[in-house]
């Protein structure tokens, strides 16, 4: 019975049975004896001085173990780390509990620990904090104006950093241009909303002097290193376990105050302490995404040739830097060229402190901003020149022969064929008929719009030189006595399906059934080293490491087989999990028998170490650049302002596909979040810094009923950066989708003179734009 080749096929996700049956173990599902529960008191003020905290009544409550404030902790726990490197960066102290001032609503002020979670919560109501409210600034642009209230009074302004990239002479581009297009963009703050909120259980073993922390994180190994630094405790005596993680979307690519605080409490109390974030806490105290404002300027020839683009932007950092807060603008700036050949590009960013929770990576992380800007800009230019947006895109597209493509932002795109994806999407949507239909409906007072996004994004993060804490990934493949294979991966999957895709790779290349391959992850005591899951790097960096380790295992198995069969490795064939001697088909040995021999270790080639395992650490030589075309067709009800998506076509190219079903799922989920950004989602703070969208009763995430029928196809342009030719797909749907929806709505409202709308496209905004009447 031949072992089927699994790579490229729709293998059902092996994770799903336990997930859909509720048999997984998230942090809150862990059951341990003698657990103490922590509850955190958070600031109700956007900015206030803490004149005093009285915890007497809380401490006196029966069942309370301890109550700690920032003053109690002092400097025994270090600052929450920011890993982004930028010489202009101002990094404020970021204590686990507020010391003298609070700077955003939701900032941790005190922690109560009790024998049960109810008592811990009751204790919070008994803590008296004497706050002296201070002037707060919520609006990013106001925060950067002279005279603004200062978030951190040790500096003379709220400027957090500056960053710029790009090349070329924009003055020359302007001089040569026939048309200049300018537009301001507001990228609203978004809340990542993983279904599982954050949660931490920390356990200290006094006898062993060891600390184990279970945390809902995307980066267990990085968290271990950072906690070692924060706690001044040896890294090798810390174990981090990321159990089942219920979604991250970037917000768990971080190190949070609560992780340091819970670890500190466990060590101080010499026991086990648990904290599970509530949804309201999640809205207040887990990072937000986006939060950028900027103005684009494009210099264009009459024939549509884009000579240059500048994008000057501001980033709303919030009050403190999280792990990668200042690292978001570079991802915007580097990708501002999109899929177009633009000789002159200039990007600037200034970070501004505000009295709000920090922004950081949220699905797409800087690239959705770049894509929205460049894809909207293309439509603005097309409108200005009265040119079809498809024609304009074709005119400026990089050609397949241009790759590797040197872009004016400094990147080299690995591979691409933008025309092919566009052609396929146009064919699927029936573009020419649609334009005729649009014209016909307009005459009836109905408003159809067609929107394009011919996006490119940057994945496979990344070369270590481009990341603050290493961009490599580890993979270990091991076969044991009985011929079962175990894979250890550092990527710590949390929904991406690598227990399936990595097993597909190993199953194919070692010729073992997929049932015999276990993929282990998310535990620093099990997986020797790793970086984590983010930046669509799972398959392209982590998967490549596993692929390379698999080849090494196979080579060793081949050497053992040759020794057992008393032939040269050159005389061996390997198929369906069996080594046979060429021309002597009944003389062979299965890989399982080889695994046994590797451990029995009596028939090994001279000098070979026993066992059958290999570890590879893959360092990518470049990023990968997936791309595609999304086309959205909408009809807008100009009386109610409602937008109906009539058709949605997505042709994505993420290089070689390991599992088409998982790729479809990633694109689908990505589009759901991109659609949320386009139509529904917006974190709102009032001007005093109060969080208005503090719950899911006011913050609208996309639900099943909001999603249209999605039509998918793919083109496949392999990446030359890694041996499997994979690129990554975790964020493509989010990055690619938003601009197509906005462009469609703006196109629909062209008869009303509408050229641009900021997100989200709420009905009231649409209705107001139509009030001026059909122009």
């Amino acid at each position: 019975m031949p072992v089927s080749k699994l790579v490229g096929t729709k293998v059902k996700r092996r994770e799903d049975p336990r997930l859909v049956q509720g048999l997984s173990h998230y942090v809150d599902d862990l059951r341990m004896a003698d657990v103490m529960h922590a509850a955190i008191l958070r600031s109700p003020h956007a900015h206030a001085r803490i004149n005093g905290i009285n915890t007497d009544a809380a401490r006196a409550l029966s069942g309370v173990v301890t109550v700690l404030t920032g003053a109690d902790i002092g400097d025994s726990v270090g600052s929450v780390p920011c890993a982004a490197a930028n010489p202009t960066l101002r990094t404020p102290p970021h204590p686990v509990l507020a010391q003298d001032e609070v700077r955003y609503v939701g900032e941790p002020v005190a922690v109560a620990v009790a024998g049960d979670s109810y008592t811990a919560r009751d204790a919070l109501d008994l803590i008296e904090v004497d706050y002296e409210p201070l002037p707060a600034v919520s609006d990013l642009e106001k925060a950067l104006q002279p005279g603004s209230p200062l978030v951190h009074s040790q500096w003379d302004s709220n400027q957090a950093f500056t960053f710029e990239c790009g090349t070329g002479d924009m003055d020359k581009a302007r001089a040569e241009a026939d048309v200049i297009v300018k537009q301001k963009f507001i990228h609203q703050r978004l809340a990542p909303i993983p279904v599982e909120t954050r949660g931490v259980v920390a356990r200290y073993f006094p006898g062993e002097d060891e600390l184990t922390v279970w945390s809902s994180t995307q980066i267990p190994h990085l968290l271990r290193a950072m906690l070692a630094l924060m706690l001044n405790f040896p890294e090798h005596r810390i174990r981090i376990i990321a159990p089942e993680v219920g979604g991250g979307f970037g917000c768990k690519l971080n190190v949070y105050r609560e992780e340091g605080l819970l670890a500190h409490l466990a060590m101080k109390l010499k026991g086990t302490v648990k904290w599970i974030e509530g949804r309201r806490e999640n809205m207040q105290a887990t990072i937000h995404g986006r939060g950028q404002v900027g103005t684009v300027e494009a210099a264009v020839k009459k024939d549509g040739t884009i000579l240059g683009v500048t994008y000057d932007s501001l980033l709303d950092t919030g009050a403190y830097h999280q792990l990668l807060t200042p690292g978001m603008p570079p991802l915007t700036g580097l990708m501002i060229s999109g899929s177009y050949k633009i000789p002159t590009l200039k990007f600037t960013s200034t970070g501004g402190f505000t009295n709000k929770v920090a922004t950081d990576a949220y699905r797409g992380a800087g690239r959705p901003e770049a894509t929205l800007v460049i894809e909207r800009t293309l439509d603005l230019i097309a409108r200005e020149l009265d040119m079809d947006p498809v024609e304009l895109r074709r005119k400026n597209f990089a050609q397949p022969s241009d790759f590797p493509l040197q872009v004016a932002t400094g990147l080299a795109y690995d591979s691409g064929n933008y025309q092919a994806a566009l052609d396929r999407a146009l064919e699927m949507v029936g573009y020419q008929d649609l334009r005729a239909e649009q014209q016909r409906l307009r005459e009836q007072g109905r408003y159809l719009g067609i929107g394009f996004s011919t996006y490119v994004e940057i994945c496979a993060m990344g070369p270590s030189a481009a990341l603050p804490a290493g961009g490599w990934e580890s993979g270990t493949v091991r076969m044991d006595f009985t011929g079962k294979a175990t894979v250890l991966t550092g990527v710590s999957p949390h929904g991406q399906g690598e227990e399936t895709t990595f097993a597909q790779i190993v199953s194919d290349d070692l010729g073992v059934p997929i049932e015999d391959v276990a993929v282990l992850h998310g535990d620093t005591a099990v997986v020797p080293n790793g970086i984590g899951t983010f930046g669509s790097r799972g398959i392209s960096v982590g998967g490549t490491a596993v692929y390379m380790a698999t080849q090494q295992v196979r080579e060793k198995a081949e050497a053992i087989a040759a020794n057992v069969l008393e032939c040269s490795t050159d005389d061996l064939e390997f198929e369906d999990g069996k080594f046979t001697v060429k021309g002597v088909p009944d003389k062979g040995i299965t890989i399982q028998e080889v695994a046994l021999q590797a451990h029995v270790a009596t028939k090994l080639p001279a000098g070979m170490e026993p066992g059958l395992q290999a570890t590879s650490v893959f360092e990518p030589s470049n990023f990968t650049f997936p791309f595609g075309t999304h086309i959205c067709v909408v009809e807008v009800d100009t009386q109610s302002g409602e937008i109906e998506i009539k058709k949605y076509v997505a042709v994505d190219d993420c290089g070689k596909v390991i599992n088409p079903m998982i790729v479809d799922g990633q694109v689908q989920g990505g589009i759901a979040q991109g659609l949320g950004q386009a139509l529904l989602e917006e974190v709102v703070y009032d001007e005093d810094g109060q969080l208005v969208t503090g719950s899911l009763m006011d913050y609208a995430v996309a639900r099943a009923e909001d999603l249209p029928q999605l039509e998918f196809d793919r083109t496949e342009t392999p990446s030359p950066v890694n041996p499997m030719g994979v690129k990554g797909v975790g964020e493509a749907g989010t990055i690619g989708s938003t601009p197509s929806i906005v462009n469609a709505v703006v196109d629909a409202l062209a008869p009303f003179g509408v050229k641009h709308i900021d997100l989200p496209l709420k009905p009231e905004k649409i209705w107001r734009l139509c009030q001026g009447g059909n122009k």
Partner: protein
Amino acid sequence: MIPAAFDYIVPDSLEAAAASLAEAGDNGKVMAGGHSLLPMMKLRLAQPGVVIDLKRLDSLRRIQVDGGTLRIGALVTHHQVETSSEVKDNCALLARVAGSIGDPQVRNRGTIGGSVVHGDPAADWPAALLAMGAELTLTSSGGARSMAAGDFFLGPLTTAIEASEILTGLSVAVPAAGTRAAYRKVKQKASGFAIVGIAVCLQADGDTCTDVGIGVTGLAGTPFRATAVEDQLRGKALTADNITAAAAGVADGVDALDDIHASGEFRAHLARLNTARAIQDALGG
């Protein structure tokens, strides 16, 4: 998301429930499905000392048609209303409104009585109950009384129920044959509540409107019956122009709610637009 401590009572009879409530006074809160009360308790916005759970009072779970009157017990879930053949056959509007509430989980657990007595100004039920002229039954240890839906809603989360009373059920007159009805709702996308909800119940002789009831939710702090619009339609031909003209008055004199989801101006516009559209829906369906 952990409530403050409270005592929990599960009475076996309505009498016992009323007695417990009388004893608890202002400190007591009655629970039906718990879909409004428990979230408020978890946020500690409500901290009742005593929660009286009606879940054992099976007599409040009935739907019955009784000589031209449809009676629905307070513990009937939204899902039961949505799928009940008695409701669909006798008062389809209520089934339609029930189906527009929340999501399946909410409809499976939330009750009509609990929702109505909570008095959320953007809930769906008030629009339908006002349009239909429903009567509510309020029971205390002193006995039961009946109150028109139009007298019940007083303001945001405020109703005419006394602290000692339990809403035990509601009734509507089964509409005459040929009555047309519709519900139009503009959903607040996060909560699923109505930014504006318009329920219309309409009778016509030929194309002349002989009677009409219009209930409006979401627009103001108190759901209300659009009597001015009704008056303008009664006896009139149901032409598009007449409908639009009548609907244009739905927000007149109303202090429209204004929040991040919709300004007062937009809510008023949506109320006018959807009043006209709901009437058209009723005529079409």
